[in-house]
């Protein structure tokens, strides 16, 4: 049987974070708490991505003394998931910022952050 490695721990943690985040989005009435939920959800996804991209026993994709150019393809982990995670983190920050901006505007206009108060548009 395969040993429980770092990537398993990462993926499990990530999934737990995703679920926690979803729970937060679905159950918290306060918009700020919902945004925190989204943040957790997003972070969870990023951790899962890192976990999936990680390969046991290989090193970081940086060419220095530890990695020779000729051996690189065998020694390093695939850099693409990490590049993707970086991008995803940036996008996630953008979305979180936009959500917070909305929260601010909503609060300024209505003096409340209760999501249930914002259901004029329906049906």
């Amino acid at each position: 049987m395969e040993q429980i490695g770092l990537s398993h721990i990462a993926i499990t943690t990530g999934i737990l974070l995703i679920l926690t985040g979803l729970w937060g989005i679905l159950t918290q009435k306060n918009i700020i708490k919902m945004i925190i939920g989204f943040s957790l959800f997003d972070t969870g996804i990023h951790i899962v991505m890192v976990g999936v991209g990680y390969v046991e026993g290989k090193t970081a994709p940086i060419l220095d003394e530890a990695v020779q150019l000729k051996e690189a393809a065998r020694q390093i982990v695939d850099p693409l998931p990490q590049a993707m995670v970086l991008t995803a983190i940036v996008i996630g920050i953008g979305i979180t910022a936009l959500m917070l901006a909305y929260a601010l505007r909503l609060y300024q206009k209505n003096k409340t952050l209760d999501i249930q108060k914002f259901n004029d548009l329906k049906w």
Partner: protein
Amino acid sequence: MVEPIYIVASGLGIAFLLGLFRKTGESLPGLIMLLTLAFMTFVSGQWLISLMFEGGTPQYTYTAGFKPPFSINLLMGQSEAVITTMVNGVGLLGGLYLLDRLKAQGVNSMIVFLLLFVGLNVVVMTRDLFNLFVFLEVSSVAIVGLVLLERSTQSLSAGFKYLLATALISGILLIGIILIYQYAGSLYIDDLVRANLTAVKGGMVAVFLILIAVALELKPFPANGWGLDLYQGAHPGLGALVSGGFATAMVFVLYKLLPMAGGGWQYMMATLGAVTFIGSNLLGIKQGHAKRLLGYSSVGQIGLLMIVVGLSQHLGEALTAIACGLLVSHFLAKSGLFWLAGIIQKDGLRDWAVLRKKPFLLVLFGTFIFALVGFPPFPSFFAKWELIMQLSAAEGFAWAGIVLFGSLLEGIYLFRWLGYSIKLDHQELPSFRLPWQKILPVGISGVALYILGYFATPIASGAGSLSYLPLAFIVLVFLLDFLPARVKNVLSLAGMAFYGYMIMPGLYENDGLRFLFSIIFVIGGILTLLPGFAYTGKRRGFYPAALLMFAGLGQLLTAETLLQFFFAWELMTVGSYILIIRGKRSMRHGYTYMLFSVGGAFLMLAGFGIAYATSGMTSLEALGQVTQWAGWASALIAIGFMTKTATLGLHIWLPGAHAEAESDVSPMVSAILLKAGVFGLLLLFISMGAESAGSKPLFYVLGWLGAITALIANLTAVFQEDAKRLLAYSSIGQLGYILFAFAIMTHVGWLAGFTYTINHFMYKAILFLVVGGIVMRLKTHNMYEMGGLIKRMPYSFIAVLIGIIALSGLPPLSGFAGKWLFYNAGIEKGWYLQGGVVFFSGIIAFLYLYRLIHSVFLGQLKDRHRTVKEISPWFLVPAYVLILGIMAFSANPEWFLKPFGQITAPYFPDSQLTWQSDGTAVGQLGYWNGTQVMAIVMALFVAITLWLIMLNRNAKKVKQFNIVYAAESPETPETTHISYNLYAGYNKALGVLTRPGITGLWNWISEAVTELADQVRRIYSGNGQTYVLHVLTYVVIVYLITTGGL
């Protein structure tokens, strides 16, 4: 040629540079933004032209000099060129439209606006999955940013809900992408398509997550509350961008990614589309808020496109054309509608009546509505036709049914809305501003729909040499609409005459049946256009509509293929709808007429689909070559035609539509338009094999339907107080006779049918013309408010007298010929009981005819009518021309009946009717000589008249008021009038048959549908968390269904 990468580079570069212009004011950055969008449109348009028309080759752009999968690459192929041109086009027009808003918000909003379109272009062109994700996020964030153009609580909360849902969806997409990468080792879409990922369990989950995320971006019903709230809450200019730009791009993304999955998944996507198309359009029925309704319609149309993409494997080479036709129509119409919503700034559908203040906006609104439902000459018409044909050819009849049913549901709310804007009574119609930069985009969308429709014609199988010449003439008349009515009337008459000159000689040579109907459609058209000279003013919109109807009718006769026939049928429907809804109180009736027409047309279309599928032919002969499901095909088509002949059950639109129409419209739609249904039925009967088909149960049913229609309609006519309503019910009854006669399916039966057809045309035109003329003079429809008019309107009296004698079927006039043939045929066929019903309804007809002549012309002249003049000669002249026709038929029936025999002979060769040299017709059951009967009756008439004059020579003439009153004066004077409720006794005995049971049934159906829509739409609670839950539940349920876990 400019490289496609410059679309992205220019947008992105200028967006950054715009930041430098914060201090220069907003005009310069606004101009730069528009120029950039124009440049982007130019580049993609250039590729469109090169790839579509000049045989250019698709271009790959590789970043950083690596080939995929080591680099991101963009593809500019034919589809990409089409989609990016559309997206950039809506960006340019939408940017112009929103310019003042964007200026008010500052340079930052312009940057966001440009980024939205950079994002969409990359999403369309990229072949890299992660790149797709990034720019999808850019677009989504830009949309949410642009929501802030409107800073009400509603738009803020809508934006937040949208953000929440799209954030969740992008999370799902991201997980899918990383899983895909793990299983395929590549994110290059072409690699992924080749990799057959769905074969392994993990790969399948990955593909599922990606496809469901894309599907969710299309806002599928019912997990789309967040999208609908955005449509409703955001600025309509943004609604146009989301519906026209974002949704268009996402449909293409679905099309691009779907090949990653296998066949079963494509059905899944089509099913999700079907649920969306039906569900969203159903909920639209109850919706009263304009922008939200547009959202429902938008979501529905995207659902239709999901069906098309999902079923792409069955559509073969037609796929691109169908998808483009539907997409471009929706794109132009929906952006146009959102922009209109922004111009008039009214949320309630009923408030759109203000559009009447600006007729050209009303015309554009109508254009968009007709384009959405799929009427000619718009691209959606041809695309929908081809979709139904290809689905049928692949035996996907259930899919075809779903497409048609959903379209009907969409028609229900769209035509109600159009009706409101044309006709709804409105106390005050506030004016609104019309800035040119807001009108221009709407106008361009509208005009583009017509132009693209013209070019989209070849999409449809069997378009052949579809003639646009009549339509070009109508456009000319429409452009001259500012001229006085008389001038346009002359122009229209000239057009009609020329049209007749073009088509009638050819038909005379080759096809007696079509020639007969061309007399009704063209000559009848000319005669009923003459009364137009009695109108003063401009009569805006009347002539284009009337000509459209007549062009449709004429093209029915020249149609050679199924498509040409259907095209003509729909043109006729549009024209007649506009004519009918022009009446003062016609909003409801025009609406009902349209719904029955659309429903009937869709049934026909389904039938045509079966015919095309089983015969493989596009010509009208296909109807006769149906090898399988022939019963279904003929039943569907027959019901379609019977919505126009107003057979019982499908008749409820007719009385109101004909009665409330303008005086010269009633004869058009009654005497002429109804014959289109008759012509269609005849084509169907002939193609079914005429004689050999006569024993089919269908004809037995149709015979009974005709008989019962005649009975009930005639009985209802008896109890009408409104003269035009009486004539309308009478028309239903007469069409019942015609259906009955043709359903007999023998030589004599058809002779009777033709006789009734031509006679009903003549006498119903006479009656409606004269009664219409009287209504114009007296300003009332009620017969008890008329009376004694014989003195004031003697020529009208004579015309009506001749009309009702002909209608009643009494000798010596032509109606008798019909009756005589009719009974011969019925008895030969052995239809005694049905024949008895028809005979009985013929007797009932005497009651209402007597009422018409008695209540209107005889009795006491009303005080207020003492100086009323004879009706306008423009109504009398055509009526008297038609009287000449009736007289000719009556005096020399063989002039007409012999040609009818020649028409019938090819289909029913063994005639039981022979002609002797003196013009006597001999049937199996007896003989009849019209000329002699005429002579005898005339002699009797003269003799009796002389005798009466003799008897009355000593009578004393008294004045009208030389009578004694009783000592009371009644409170409601009209109830004491003899003509009021004239047949109260009969009503007690037989009135139960005329209770509007069928109207009740249709009302019940419509209420049930509306109530269902109202209940279902409550799932959109307005709570952002509920919407997120919908999205998650949707993912789980679809997953369980696709993997077979549910």
